[in-house]
């Protein structure tokens, strides 16, 4: 085989990495390169340097060290039985490529993952070495996200946390039986154990940093994971319960949902057709309600039919239509928690309403100026000059409001 150029390797190894949904470069400490004399900064905000025609943000150089893998996970394009072209970067090649891209302002940093070659420990060592070299040899202060390999030595994972902003381990499937069936080399219990361990280390490091700014950082942007939607028969209820447990027990920053995407040379045990992208979108919306709107997982699963979120209606609207007894909500008096439950009112709008109502009694017109789509909000609120006497009682309320949502996401 002739030697591949850096460009050829990049094409193969970026292609192999694109099924990881995460490209976030946000969270974590603010820092810059003025003290290291190298390059790189993080503002805590994250920057999307480009967008691909799939609508996804390109923030990080997202590549694999190698797409060779001794694991044979059915849903994965890089599984050992897949017929894709294989390539491997050296540590130096990835370090140089990251710096070359960063200096041209293409990226915020690196998201490095890898197929498992030779052994989990060997692979993890290579990943950690890239991060070490960037930080120590080149004074790189940009963002680093490392995929950790749960089967690896905990000491290696600890080293990874010292260099990385974020660590992640993909659970991929919410139920351990599905992991055993589709990813025979992986072990759900082992993944959870490693996540728990990471969560503990991240929490401890954060507490120590609050005591002393000199305490060493450990993955300051936290940990995340990813679940594949539609590769097995797991329902949305399984997925959200798994996510809720991750947020609660391991302090995860984010759970990503990735609609199973047809991959080249797919295993025939998988569905060839992808699930609707809308299902993935609804999971993200429901996840958002869990994290930022004070919804409990039971409230959301209570609106599901057959373990699935409605595709026609966003989960907040679905909940509101079921719980009409909670509405209408008075925008001039209701507490923040209740305003957050009004379909069509986001957290920013709610905060503006609360500020604005200190100055005047809000009329429907005032609400209209602050929110995006008044038509959607109207049936659920009371304002100084507005009371939705009939709308809220209509049996077809959900369908009257929902169709207008569809084109937004189509």
């Amino acid at each position, binding site marked *: 085989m002739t030697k591949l150029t850096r460009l050829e390797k990049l094409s193969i190894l970026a292609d192999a990495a*694109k099924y990881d949904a995460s490209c976030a470069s946000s969270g974590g400490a603010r820092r810059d390169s003025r003290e290291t004399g190298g390059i790189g900064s993080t503002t805590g905000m994250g*920057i999307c340097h*480009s967008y691909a*025609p799939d*609508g996804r943000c390109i923030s990080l150089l997202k590549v694999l060290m190698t797409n060779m893998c001794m694991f*044979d996970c059915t849903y994965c394009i890089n599984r*050992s039985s897949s017929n894709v072209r294989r390539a491997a970067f050296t540590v130096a090649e990835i370090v140089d490529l990251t710096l070359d891209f960063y200096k*041209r302002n293409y990226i915020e940093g690196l998201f490095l993952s890898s197929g498992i070659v030779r052994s989990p420990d060997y692979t993890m060592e290579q990943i950690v070495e890239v991060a070490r070299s960037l930080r120590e040899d080149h004074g790189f202060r940009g963002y680093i996200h490392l995929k950790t390999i749960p089967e690896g030595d905990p000491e290696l994972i600890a080293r990874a946390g010292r260099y990385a902003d974020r660590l992640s381990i993909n659970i991929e499937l919410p139920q351990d039986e599905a992991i055993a069936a589709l990813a025979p080399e992986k072990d759900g219990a082992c993944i959870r154990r490693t996540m728990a361990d990471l969560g503990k280390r991240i929490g401890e490091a954060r507490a120590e940093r609050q005591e002393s700014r000199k305490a060493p950082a450990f993955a300051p942007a936290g940990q995340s994971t990813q679940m594949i939607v539609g590769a097995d028969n797991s329902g949305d209820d399984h997925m959200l319960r798994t996510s809720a447990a991750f947020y609660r027990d391991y302090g995860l920053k984010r759970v990503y949902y990735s609609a199973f995407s047809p991959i080249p040379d797919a295993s025939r045990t998988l569905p060839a057709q992808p699930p609707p992208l809308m299902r993935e979108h609804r999971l993200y919306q429901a996840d958002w309600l869990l994290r930022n709107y004070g919804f409990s997982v039971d409230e959301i699963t209570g609106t599901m039919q057959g373990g699935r979120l409605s595709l026609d209606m966003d989960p907040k609207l679905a909940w509101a239509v079921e719980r009409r007894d909670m509405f209408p909500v008075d925008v001039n008096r209701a507490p923040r928690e209740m305003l957050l439950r009004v379909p069509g009112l986001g957290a920013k709008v709610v905060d503006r309403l609360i*500020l*604005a109502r200190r100055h005047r009694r809000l009329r429907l017109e005032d609400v209209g100026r602050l929110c995006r789509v008044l038509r959607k909000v109207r049936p659920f609120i009371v304002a100084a000059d507005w009371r939705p006497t009939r709308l809220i009682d209509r049996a077809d309320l959900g369908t009257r409001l929902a169709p207008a949502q569809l084109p937004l996401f189509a």
Partner: protein
Amino acid sequence: MTAARATLAAADDFAGWRDHARAFLAAGIAPEGVVWDVAGGDAPDLFGIGAMAGPTAPADGEAIRVPRDLLGLLRDALMHSAPHRFALAYRLLWRLRAAPHLHRDPSDPDMIALHGLAKAVRRDIHKMHAFVRFRKIGVVDGREQFAAWFEPDHHIARATAGFFRDRFAGMDWLIVTPEASIAWDGVALREGPGGSRDDVPAEDAVEAEWQAYYASIFNPARLKINMMKREMPVRYWRNLPEAPLIAGLIGDAGRRVGAMVEGGTRSEERLAEIPVAERRFDNLDRLYAALDAEDAPPSPGFSRRVVFGEGPSSAPLMLVGEQPGDQEDEAGRPFVGPAGQLLDQCLAEAGLARDGIFLTNAVKRFKFTERGRRRIHQTPTTGDISHYRWWLAEEVRLVAPKIVVALGATALHALSGRKQALGPVRGAALPWGGRLLLPTVHPSFLLRLPDEQGRAIERGRFVRELRRAVAAI
């Protein structure tokens, strides 16, 4: 009332606006009486009237306190390109005297307008942080030098200098915009006049790799063009090296997805026809007798001894290895060396007894080179494999197993008739001339792995594949 005119030094001259505004407030000049413009033109006011009213220090005690959160908002909003921004900002200060909490009311129309300007400016700054693309000029005194051309919507160039300095401290850089240029040399930030696209290099070698990355990271199964355009508006595209690829990627997406959904049913093609034996034998004993009597090694380096298969002559499961090794050659039996012992253990773990299985090799003699007193294994050539291929086929026909397990790439090559990678077909029970063929690794592969952790993983997988073979019987 006398109309007052304020001429600011530049379109982003916040300090100038502030000084004028203070003076006007102190003088009690109402917003309707002020005309704002920018020296050299921002958006020239065609109806310019009145006398110059230069900034004067506000009278003592009249100094107006602008709340800190409003000041930040004004700073951002005044970088906007809308000509009415100065007047709007002054009107807010004027109204603030009577309504000190005005700026906290998000539903006030002037505040909504100011928030709107500030938001657009912050977005433009954010997009400049994101979409500036440096090109390398060269290296001077060990420092790399880069330059970029960028066209912002608003008067934000100078406001971004600190961000780029903090981020790119270790390199020299220059960003040229139509209105101003900013630069960093490792010591100080400098500002200069605006320029043109020709002030920066026309290309950069790394751009080809960036384009390759952009094309590869795109998932054609999830086309969302509007989403891309909302976040990366088309007006920025002319300065983005990746943008020329977009049309082609979109155009080709449907075809690529179609190919993926249809693909994946090609494994049968990987199995060629089973060779028809030139001669047929009645039983294995006769076959082996003929093999022993007639076979001449196909190439140099082979042992003189032929090692036959062994096991029940009607076993439902047949395992085919590569060739006998040193110990097999000595003993005249297949799978008795280290690999054979490992195979026995794995068979036991998979719930199989060795004596219920037929074991043989694709190549019937040990091929080696001598190094001192040791005989080192040599991989058989394609010629060697095809030489023994019909003997093997005849062995399979006589034993008539339900499933044949190919141990390693040589066995797979011999059985399938095609030299091919094991990875893509490993562990799959493939239909093969009325039987099943299940390719997996050779146990000697497990012995060669350098790492105990890796060995345990591969061994677990090998045992699972043997179990799958049993289940297929």
